[in-house]
């Protein structure tokens, strides 16, 4: 081995020569006698200028650096003595990390911890109050605001996924002028100049050529600016258009009460709930999150009594999933159903004379069906037996007459003021959105529009196809589109303005019942965007509007600083809920029923109906570029990255359509070709398609035709016309055989064959345990007895006793509605990557939590059950026993720890897991989708923006590593440490896993099983509680509460009665 090289010797001699009193190292320290013959840093070895400068520093310090007392280093040198190899190995250190502290730290900010801020997000004019968690100044997680009436602490999948949308690199970052091929980057300054010219031209005609096309908004500040705008330009018009908003509720209310009112439901006070094609628990339904909570609150068998839910609907909705009885009826027939119910109920309920005469029983074909008649009669009987304690709800897309009939039913049944209440809909327009858009299009085509300001939305994509809004738009002299992305509308507008995300904006919004929330930004606009409020204020004449001032000016009651701060801190302004109204029901007269509404169940090709519904994940298309939402398995079909037309099994057979076929759906002279899925429980003769897919200019995720990125799914708007806007009739279908691609559904969609299906049916009762209220009351222990097994013995010595914390979870299947908000919350909290369509099709999805959906019964009449499955955190975990490297170990608190850095990717653990809850990173998903990891620094701004969505509290996994649900161990640890620091115990409910936190119904409960008073302990002790595959002796910490339904004895088949009586003697 070479000794110290001559070169180094020279350097060291230079060092010793340069030594003077100030630089001579003096050994100080406990027992240290090392001599300074070796260098302390590379800088010293290389005699870098910085080192030399340090060596000759400003003021003499008595103490110099004492070299570290490191035997390892000395020993190594003695063995090796090769200074160059030393240098080489010393460079075997990872890339240096920088710490960038704030220059001025705001008071109370602790770097590296998150703070919650209250804000709100508006969708379709209704705000849901949220808490946004900000980590080091960037929002990374959304939660619900418990104080907000439409959230009650919950947040839907949309809300959870908005953080990804905030950091979407496809968001537009500059003003663009010109349309189509003439587009070029511009700036706010240039827009300002152009705007000045446009406005001065408009002033001469008092704004006769100015039109504003806006999304529905309840924002009082925006309303104020709108008023100012219309005052400045009296001839201008403001058009509201929401593609997913139906006019049925408004028009129905006008029919019934003479004015527009909003309905509010107190499902927890109801004993009978009847929904007519209404998905009341879905987040897109007004106050849907709150409805989910109240509807399931009254369905706990332990209370002795349960409500009964009847769902009469055209497809299986989430409400239908948790209902006790379902009747699948075409959407066009619902009107006759409502009329029938009115006829039967009014006959017995003695309605007040001023309500007018009841409807006659419709002479409809389908009502002659014995099953249907029996169903409806039982419903009516149940309603009549529970006067004042029932709720009837009409679906959003049902026509006005259905809504009016339902108002009448609720009034006749005495529900008003008890389970149903009304508030005035002060913001309602005089005409439907569609009518307003039609007149705007006519004006555009007539050349009457000089300036069209489009605030948000994407009308070129979402307007009914027959309006040809895109062509009409081109006829406006200047069109200005404010939006987050350069989407289909922006491409055809003469100006595109980047919008500010709601997490970047000041604003305000009202909940469904009128409660005011202030929207506050958590981060400055990343791309220089502006909110609609600012743009309208600018149009109205404010030179450089400041959104904060605009919002504060709009709320004189919050001028006092403490009131303002309280509103910001709590997220709601107390006392702003609209007052209860008491509308007077008018006589409805005879509701006209025309041919399709009097038809039979089912329908022939050419006479089918097509129901357009808002997509439960990407809404009206605005979230098409949101990868989390695209990859979220849809509740019923578990379909990802696609949309499909849903057909019932019987109709599919009649039409010759097989599951996962490619079919062409034709409405009039418009047609599209897309995937068809057979949906058990779907109404015969009805097709359902979700809107929002098939975007051509969404972005790199959702479809960008200009860069050869195929659109995701098929565009259903292309089938929509002004006639048959909600429900199209006279639809025909043609099958083309199997689709050319592999359908990416996370639950098997292909038929398993008869024997396989039989086996599934045999096994499922043990996995998804269900029963009726009668069975439960008779013998609460029936849940345990569903599975018989031998006494469970363990091969190992009884495990360590869990004396400290004993984490456990209970999932109530009675409450789970299958909305999958928990899945997206988990993804947001734990940095779960997106894998894309192909990989999902191969079964390589990465979502830690999955919600299984099972059908029960006959395909034509299926019942649906949901079961969320996280890692069961088994005490006797099969996965821990087979890991060759000990990457998954059991903690002393019962958690199954996953240590990513130790995992070598044998996947034996996943092989051994009976629940299949482990996910493997087959590729470097995070690197590939985000483009940055800690080890590959990047200057790519797009990658940096995307990386901002990561939660720093959780490791970002690389390729070859197994991952799984950890019970949000980062949340557990943070609360434990916080509590221990101040020596206080942890309260029950202080630690909420992400899934638990966002669940609208509170189905998931996490806590300490060693705490006798914890909610989870009580739930796990219930007789309804069971462990999934408990007979394997895994001892899972997650237990499920069996699903108990409350069927109507009049509707349960006689065999079921015989079964029940058999078990009595059994």
């Amino acid at each position, binding site marked *: 081995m070479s000794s110290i090289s001559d070169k180094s010797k020279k350097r060291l001699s230079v060092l010793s020569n340069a030594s003077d009193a100030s630089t001579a190292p003096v050994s100080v320290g406990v027992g240290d006698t090392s001599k300074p013959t070796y260098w302390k840093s590379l800088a010293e070895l290389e005699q870098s200028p910085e080192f030399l400068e340090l060596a000759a520093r400003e003021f003499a310090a008595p103490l110099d650096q004492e070299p570290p007392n490191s035997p390892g280093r000395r020993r190594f040198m003695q063995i090796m003595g090769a200074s160059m190899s030393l240098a080489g190995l010393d460079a075997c250190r990872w890339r240096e990390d920088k710490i960038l502290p704030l220059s001025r730290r705001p008071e109370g900010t602790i770097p590296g*911890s998150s703070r919650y801020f209250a804000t709100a997000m508006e969708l379709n004019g209704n705000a849901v109050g949220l808490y946004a968690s900000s980590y080091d100044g960037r929002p990374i997680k959304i939660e619900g605001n418990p104080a907000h009436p439409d959230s009650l602490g919950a947040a839907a999948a949309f809300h959870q996924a908005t953080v990804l949308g905030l950091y979407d690199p496809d968001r537009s970052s500059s003003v663009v002028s010109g349309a189509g091929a003439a587009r070029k980057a511009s700036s706010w300054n240039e827009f300002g100049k152009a705007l000045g010219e446009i406005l001065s031209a408009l002033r001469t005609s008092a704004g006769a050529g100015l039109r504003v096309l806006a999304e529905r908004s309840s924002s009082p500040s925006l309303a104020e600016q709108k008023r100012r705008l219309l005052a400045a330009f009296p001839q201008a018009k403001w058009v509201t258009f929401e593609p997913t908003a139906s006019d049925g509720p408004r028009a129905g209310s006008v029919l019934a009460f003479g004015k527009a009112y909003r309905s509010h439901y107190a499902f927890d006070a109801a004993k009978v709930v009847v929904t007519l094609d209404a998905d009341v628990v879905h987040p897109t339904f007004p106050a849907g999150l709150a409805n989910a909570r109240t509807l399931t609150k009254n369905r706990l068998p332990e209370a002795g009594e349960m409500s009964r839910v009847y769902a009469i609907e055209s497809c299986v909705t989430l409400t239908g999933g948790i209902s006790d009885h379902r009747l699948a009826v075409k959407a066009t027939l619902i009107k006759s159903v409502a009329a029938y119910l009115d006829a039967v109920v009014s006959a017995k309920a003695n309605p007040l004379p001023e309500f007018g005469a009841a409807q006659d029983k419709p002479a409809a074909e389908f009502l002659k069906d014995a099953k249907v008649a029996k169903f409806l009669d039982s419903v009516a009987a149940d309603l009549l037996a529970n006067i004042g304690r029932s709720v009837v709800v009409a679906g959003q897309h049902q026509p006005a007459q259905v809504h009016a009939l339902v108002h009448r039913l609720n009034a006749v049944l005495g529900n008003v003021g008890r389970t149903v209440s009304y508030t005035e809909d002060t913001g309602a327009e005089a005409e439907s959105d569609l009518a307003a858009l039609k007149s705007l299009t006519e004006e555009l085509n007539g050349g009457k529009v000089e300036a069209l300001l489009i605030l948000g939305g994407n009308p070129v994509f979402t307007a009914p196809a027959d309006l040809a809004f895109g062509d009409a738009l081109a006829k406006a002299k200047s069109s200005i589109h404010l939006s987050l992305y350069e989407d289909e509308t922006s491409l055809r507008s003469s100006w595109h303005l980047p919008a500010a995300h709601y997490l970047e904006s000041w604003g305000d919004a009202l909940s469904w019942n009128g409660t005011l929330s202030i929207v506050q930004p958590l981060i400055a606009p990343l791309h220089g965007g502006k909110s609609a409020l600012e743009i309208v204020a600018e149009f109205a004449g404010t030179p450089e509007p400041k959104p904060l001032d605009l919002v504060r000016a709009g709320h004189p009651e919050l001028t006092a600083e403490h009131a303002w701060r309280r509103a910001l801190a709590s997220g709601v302004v107390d006392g702003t809920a609209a007052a209860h109204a008491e509308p007077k029901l008018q006589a409805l007269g005879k509701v006209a029923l025309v041919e399709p509404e009097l038809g039979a169940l089912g329908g022939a090709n050419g006479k089918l109906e097509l129901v357009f519904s808002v997509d439960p994940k990407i809404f009206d298309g605005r979230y098409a570029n949101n990868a989390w939402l695209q990859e979220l398995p849809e509740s019923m079909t578990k379909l990802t990255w696609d949309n499909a037309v849903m057909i019932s099994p019987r109709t599919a057979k009649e039409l010759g359509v097989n599951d996962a076929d490619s079919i062409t759906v034709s409405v009039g002279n418009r047609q599209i070709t897309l995937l068809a899925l057979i949906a058990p429980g779907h109404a015969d003769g009805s097709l359902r398609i979700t809107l929002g897919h098939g975007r051509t200019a969404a972005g790199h995720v959702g479809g960008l035709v200009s860069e050869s990125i195929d659109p995701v799914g098929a565009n259903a708007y292309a089938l929509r016309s002004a006639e048959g806007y909600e429900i199209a009739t006279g639809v025909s279908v043609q099958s083309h055989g199997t689709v050319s691609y592999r359908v990416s559904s996370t639950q098997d969609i292909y038929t398993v064959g008869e024997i396989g299906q039989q086996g599934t049916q045999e096994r499922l009762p043990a996995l998804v345990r269900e029963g009726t209220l009668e069975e439960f009351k008779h013998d609460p222990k029936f849940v345990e007895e569903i599975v018989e097994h031998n006494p469970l013995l363990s091969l190992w010595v009884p495990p360590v006793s869990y004396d400290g914390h004993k984490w456990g979870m209970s999932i109530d299947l009675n409450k789970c509605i299958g909305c999958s908000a928990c899945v997206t919350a988990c993804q947001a909290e734990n940095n779960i990557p997106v894998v894309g369509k192909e990989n999902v099709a191969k079964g390589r999805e990465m979502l830690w939590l999955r919600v299984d959906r099972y059908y029960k019964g006959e395909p034509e009449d299926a019942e649906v059950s949901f079961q969320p499955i996280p890692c069961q955190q088994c005490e006797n975990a099969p996965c821990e026993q087979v890991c060759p490297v000990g990457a998954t170990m059991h903690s002393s608190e019962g958690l199954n720890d996953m240590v990513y850095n130790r995992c070598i990717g044998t996947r034996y653990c996943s092989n051994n897991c009976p629940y299949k809850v482990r996910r493997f990173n087959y590729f470097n998903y995070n690197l590939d989708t985000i483009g940055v990891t800690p080890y590959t620094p990047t200057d790519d701004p797009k990658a940096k923006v995307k990386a901002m969505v990561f939660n720093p509290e959780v490791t970002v996994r690389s390729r070859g590593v197994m991952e799984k649900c950890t019970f949000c161990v980062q949340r557990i640890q943070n609360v434990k440490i916080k509590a221990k620091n101040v020596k206080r115990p942890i309260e029950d409910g202080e630690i909420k896993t992400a899934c638990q936190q966002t669940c609208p119904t509170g189905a998931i409960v996490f806590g300490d099983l060693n705490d006798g008073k914890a909610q989870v302990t009580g739930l796990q002790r219930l007789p309804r509680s069971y462990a999934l595959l408990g007979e394997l002796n895994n001892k899972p910490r997650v237990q499920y509460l069996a699903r108990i339904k409350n069927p109507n004895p009049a509707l349960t088949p006689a065999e079921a009665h015989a079964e029940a009586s058999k078990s009595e003697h059994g």
Partner: protein
Amino acid sequence: MNLFVFPRWANKTRQIAGVVLGVAPIYLIALIWYGASPKTTDVGYMPEQPVPYSHALHAGQLGIDCRYCHNTVEDSSHAAIPPAQTCMNCHSKVWTTSPKLAPIRESYQTGRAVEWVKVHDLPDYAYFNHSAHVTRGIGCVSCHGRVDQMEKVYQHEPLSMGWCLDCHRNPEPNLRPVEEVTNMTWAQPNPEFGKEFREKNHIAPPTDCSTCHR
């Protein structure tokens, strides 16, 4: 048939070849054992900082407590590097025009961060929480060494997982009263101190994986 025929001189090298082949694996193992050990690669790491801040002066000579600047250490996982504002608390009055403090003044005025180089750099998959240690009686000096004598901060301890576990499995030698956490020269008064302190305060450092790995 072509056999590889060793040249004749290779006969003389057979013995040496044997020795080399026997010693080479031992050499390589030792090289990596010691060379790649955190004690070699990490201990003594003393990177250049943008500002020649001397802990020896401020913490040692002037006696400023660690927590004056690293004020989040009792509440948070990070003992945060202080903002330029903290430096300006004094340096708006003292050494106000020193060129060494120029980056601090610039940061304070422009709002851009000073790019400090992280010395005690744990891997990203290891989550260390300062408050859990500082509030229970582990002194700063136990992991960071005599910072009050460092002109330029260097890493004194390997901070490897094995090193952490050594203390987690046997914390007694490293315990001190919470008031003495920032005292760099405090020593345990008697051999029984650790045991008594541990029992009195129910110190039970966890050794579960999820303690640090999430």
